[in-house]
């Protein structure tokens, strides 16, 4: 069932939790709503389920206006973060609940219900646990019971609120893989909420990144990871290094460098922030445009080596390099190296985040460049 969301707003008193959400969800899609707490992701999920009444906006299930339907009529499978299992019922009764509460003429007979429960138990790999009570199950098992219970009603859409939030890391990994497989097998349109970028990228077909009640970016996992549209998205999908820079005539310069690291008409002119992930840096020769930095610390973990560098503005830079035999090289603390971001995003600088960057110093070697150039000084110090 495809879902169309148009201009959805939600207020809690004075708090504007959803600010005009427009979203199209394809049938059979596995979609992640990703964002920090307070971003509105759970509110949006609950709005789709009908658990949050909307003052404004429409949600369509196929061609049906779901906004006019009650929670009961929407037929959504909702899996709660804390499972919300009925503690006084056995696993089998929990799963059968949605079928047993149907109006008499829509209710399957007992044998059919039992068969459906058995099928679902097998699907979620809990065969033989039907007589147990929720208190006798592990967290991962409870989660799967909750899922089976939601699937029992053959929902139009499956909604999961932080489905793995309460589980430990190992179980979470297993369940993720298992859910992906389950989705492939059953084909339900599935939307899940998470604040864990790794979870979103690993599990989903498409990711919706939300912030402050708005959608920052919608895209496939590759799109949002490789081409983040906003600093927020970049920031949320990893821990980037933010380097001050400038764009002139479509050429991108790092602060303190005279050679552009890239050029293109699409870059915003003026002062910019260059966002680059630790693993997107390369150590380059001194004649290649880049950034001179002093090694503060090196730390090797298995196949990767992590360098903490100090750059001229006084900020530190974390870079993460593959540790390959061929280029085996040990950088010494205090050594000065030149690094260059191989992949990066450029965003016009807003606010005062980097206003404390060093004032442009006059530099004889680049007359009138106006670009801060304390690197030479830096390098000199590194040699001493």
């Amino acid at each position: 069932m495809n879902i169309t969301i148009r201009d959805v707003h939600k207020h809690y008193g004075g708090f504007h939790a959803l600010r005009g959400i427009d979203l199209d969800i394809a049938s059979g899609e596995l979609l992640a709503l990703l964002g920090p707490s307070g971003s509105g992701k759970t509110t949006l999920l609950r709005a789709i389920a009908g658990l949050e009444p909307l003052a404004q906006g429409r949600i369509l299930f196929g061609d049906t206006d779901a906004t006019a339907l009650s929670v009961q009529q929407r037929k959504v499978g909702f899996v709660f973060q804390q499972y919300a299992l009925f503690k006084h019922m056995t696993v089998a009764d929990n799963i059968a609940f949605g079928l047993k509460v149907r109006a008499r003429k829509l209710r399957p007979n007992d044998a059919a219900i039992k068969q459906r429960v058995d099928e679902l138990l097998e699907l979620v790999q809990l065969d033989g646990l039907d007589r147990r009570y929720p208190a006798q199950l592990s967290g991962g098992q409870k989660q799967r019971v909750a899922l089976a219970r939601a699937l029992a009603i053959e929902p139009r859409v499956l909604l999961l609120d932080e489905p793995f939030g309460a589980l430990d890391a190992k179980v979470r990994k297993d369940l993720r893989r298992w859910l992906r497989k389950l989705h492939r097998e059953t084909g339900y349109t599935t939307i899940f909420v998470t604040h864990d970028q790794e979870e979103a990228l690993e599990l989903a077909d498409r990711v919706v990144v939300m912030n402050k009640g708005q959608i920052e970016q919608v895209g496939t996992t590759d799109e949002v990871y490789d081409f983040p549209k906003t600093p927020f998205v970049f920031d949320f999908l990893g821990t980037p290094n933010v380097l001050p820079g400038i764009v002139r005539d479509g050429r991108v310069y790092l602060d303190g460098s005279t050679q552009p690291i890239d050029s293109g008409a699409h870059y915003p002119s003026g002062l910019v922030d260059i966002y680059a992930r630790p693993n997107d840096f390369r150590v380059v020769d001194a004649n290649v445009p880049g950034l001179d930095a002093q090694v503060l610390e090196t730390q090797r973990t298995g196949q990767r080596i992590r360098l903490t560098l100090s750059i001229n503005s006084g900020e530190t830079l974390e870079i993460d390099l593959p540790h390959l035999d061929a280029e085996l090289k040990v950088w010494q603390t205090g050594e000065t190296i030149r690094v260059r971001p191989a992949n990066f995003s450029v965003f016009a600088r807003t606010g005062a985040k980097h206003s404390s960057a060093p004032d442009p110093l006059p530099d004889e070697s680049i007359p009138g460049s106006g670009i801060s150039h304390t690197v030479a000084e830096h390098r000199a110090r590194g040699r001493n």
Partner: protein
Amino acid sequence: MSSIAAPADAARRAPKRAIPGFGPTLGFTVFYLSVLVLIPLAGVFFRASGLGLEGLWNVLTGPRVLNALSLSFGAAFIAALINAVFGGVVAWVFVRYEFPGKRLLDAVIDLPFALPTAVAGIALTALYAPNGWIGELLTPLGIKVAYTRLGIIVALTFIGLPFVVRTVEPVLREVERDLEEAAATLGAMRWHTITRVILPAVLPALVTGFALSFARGVGEYGSVIFIAGNFPNVTEIAPLLITIKLDEYDYRGATAIAAAMLVISFVLLLVINLLQAWARRRA
């Protein structure tokens, strides 16, 4: 020899428990219960035993005593049942909804705890007497409350209400909203959600509240004697009969009734406790 005895000695010493203070706290509990509860109650049985079995039997099977006992337990039972239903509703309202004056009403619930019961009895009598505010309205309908068994039930309901509300409230608060929402997403209508999801979850607390309200009702004296009219065999409760026997210096008779009340109460509370354990196991 001594080298073998040493480790054996150490092994004989009981292993330390993880939770400290078992000895002192248990000792204190036994002492406390003995001084406050067990010894006085044993005194009741000791006094009553002076009658001998036959004497006891004669006192307890007297029609006036039987009537008083059945009235006390019956009225307390009905009142507790009423409280279990309506106290549950009150608790639900307090937990689930916000409305103006909620805090005030919340405080009012506790009044029966604090109010001298005689005051409650006088107030209720004034209200329900044939010329009282409520009694006036009920008289044309042929309903008499004051000076009847109905009046006793009203008084016992009044004093028992906070017991149910205050035991159910915290449990109901812990029934996560999630459960109701989960039931709704699965297609359950309001009624099914209440009967199949919420009630089973709060049932143990309801039973506790019922037991407390019932126990309080059985022992209640102050509020009842004003509204009951106290006609022997009709509206005379067992605690009043005990007082009357005491006034007549019939100490043995009084303790005999008291002992009977103790035994019946104990058995009933035991049954309720078992019921509760059963309900809790299912929850």
